[in-house]
């Protein structure tokens, strides 16, 4: 019995898990190896005798140096960070209020409004960028960070609203009713009671929104044109692929550096983020 169970655990648990972990982490490993591999190894033929595609014996930081010196990468990092932080803050502020209203207040068409906010999230950016480009031009925001700061909320606000609405619904409404009887206004009860309890939900909405804007590509590609204004995903792709020449080492170094902030944010808040998605504490 016991032996059979151990055998089953391997087949149904450990082996699939191993495959999954390798599948998920291999691209990151590849990115790392490529970033520290000298050019000589990178552009060597696959058939070369001494080819070792999965590791390198002469690690180098040359690509990182080139990335910092020959491109405006630090500038891209700052742009991405600035845009992500501001657009996330705007979206969180709107999402908090909208999510609360949809979860708690009774008003005509509340259900319809909730659904329509969700529907706007489903409009693909590949379609939406056309009218948005028009608006950006009319307001003369093209090639400024504001072009992105103001367009990212088109998908971040619906996302935050829905995530937070779901979270607010899991908080017993008696908590704020009690606060209102205890002497708080509705707004006071929201700020003093509901928001502190909703911290896991707010954090996960924030992390998600931050990641979405950090990695966003299409709007950034279309609305920004000068190299020093670009964000990391666009900058890396547009400046390090020239014609059909791929600067693989620098590309991967840029991708690696660009994903570190997101990875850090996630690892710091991972616990909050899990409770944020699975439900709240009980009163």
């Amino acid at each position, binding site marked *: 019995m016991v032996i059979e169970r151990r055998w089953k655990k391997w087949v149904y648990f450990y082996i699939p898990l191993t495959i999954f972990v390798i599948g998920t982490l291999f691209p990151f490993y590849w990115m790392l190896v490529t970033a520290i591999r000298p050019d000589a190894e990178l552009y060597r033929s696959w058939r070369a005798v001494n080819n070792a595609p999965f590791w390198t014996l002469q690690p180098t930081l040359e690509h990182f140096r080139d990335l910092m010196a020959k491109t405006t990468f630090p500038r891209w990092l700052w742009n991405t960070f600035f845009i992500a932080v501001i657009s996330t803050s705007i979206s969180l502020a709107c999402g908090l209020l909208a999510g609360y209203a949809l979860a708690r207040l009774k008003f005509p068409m509340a259900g319809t409004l909730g659904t329509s906010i969700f529907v706007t999230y489903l409009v693909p950016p590949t379609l939406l960028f056309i009218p948005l480009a028009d608006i950006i031009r009319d307001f003369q925001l093209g090639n400024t960070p504001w072009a992105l700061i103001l367009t990212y909320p088109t998908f971040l606000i619906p996302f935050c609203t829905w995530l937070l609405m779901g979270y607010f619904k899991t908080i017993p409404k008696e908590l704020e009713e009690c606060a209102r009887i205890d002497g708080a206004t509705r707004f006071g009860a929201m700020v003093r009671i509901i928001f502190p*309890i909703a911290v896991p939900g707010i954090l996960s909405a924030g992390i998600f929104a931050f990641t979405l804007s950090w990695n966003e590509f299409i709007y950034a590609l279309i609305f920004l044109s000068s190299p020093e204004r670009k964000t990391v995903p666009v900058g890396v792709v547009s400046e390090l692929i020239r014609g059909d020449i791929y600067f693989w080492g620098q590309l991967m170094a840029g991708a690696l550096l660009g994903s570190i902030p997101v990875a850090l944010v996630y690892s710091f808040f991972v616990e909050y983020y899990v409770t944020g998605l699975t439900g709240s504490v*009980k009163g």
Partner: protein
Amino acid sequence: MAQVMMKDLNKKYDEVHAVKDVNLHIRDKEFVVLVGPSGCGKSTTLRMVAGLEEITAGEITIGDRVVNDLPPKDRDIAMVFQNYALYPHMTVYDNMAFGLKMRKFPKTEIAKRVGDAAEILGIQELLKRKPRQLSGGQRQRVAVGRAIVRHPQVFLFDEPLSNLDAKLRVQMRVELKRLHERLETTAIYVTHDQVEAMTLGDRVVVMKDGWIQQVGEPLELYSRPANRFVAGFIGSPSMNFVETTIADVNGGLWADTAGLRVKVPPASAARLGPYKGQKVTLGIRPEDLRVASGADSADYSFDTVVEVVEPLGSEILLDLKAGPNVMVARVDPTVRVKHQDKMRLSLHPERVHFFDNKTELAI
């Protein structure tokens, strides 16, 4: 301290008329319990007093003020909820102090009041803990403590004991009663448990389908229920109902049905006169039935067959059949009977109730 007046109070949701023409005068320092089955409008009524539900029509007065348009925070009330509604991110102390902080009380006064309330409720050691570290009974105490520190004009309780286990519920019930006697604050208490209603209330309001069925002191509801619903709702096991026909036999009125024929007691005879030849419902509580002895008048006795015997220690509940009529009798634990035994029962003539079959009102 204040009285609470509800005048022609109504609450309509889109489809549902939840509270209908409720008129109630709750006197200063009184403990009034609203009781009824779920969906009877008792919680809605309480929430309207609290200001958590809008009033569709009618008027609520707390003290001398009409509070219809006042937000909850300005009504000077405190409420205890069924799920305690403790703020999970605050310590017990902060939970209790929250209402005072919102009202900008000085710190020393807050500390004093929280300390006093904690002492009354025996929760001094818990003040630094978070709600999730407390047991159900302790949470309940904190919730009550949070209400009493404010010294409000009215306490509102919304099924505060329903989440506790049976033993703790009995204990907290006694404590709430003691607390009310000590604080002498007007209280409105909502429950679906008729035992809680009877033991706690100075007066009990029985509600059903949004209507008030009867308002009265607990024993008054028990001994003189206004209608069949109240009669069946108050008391456990509930009152036995038998449909009978009123017949005139040799100048005396008899309630008659298959398997059961008892004389209408003299006290009820005058009121039952007009019902001659009609069907009425006879109601008798299980405790008002007893094993017939030679001394009992044959007019009030009838034969039954024992179906189920439920010995409870202090008493025995017998499920009986008198002809086709099912009934429960509460008898002395010394009675020795078993399934299918024949048994002659006698009922207490002064404690028989009659109800109009159409209106269900007591006759």
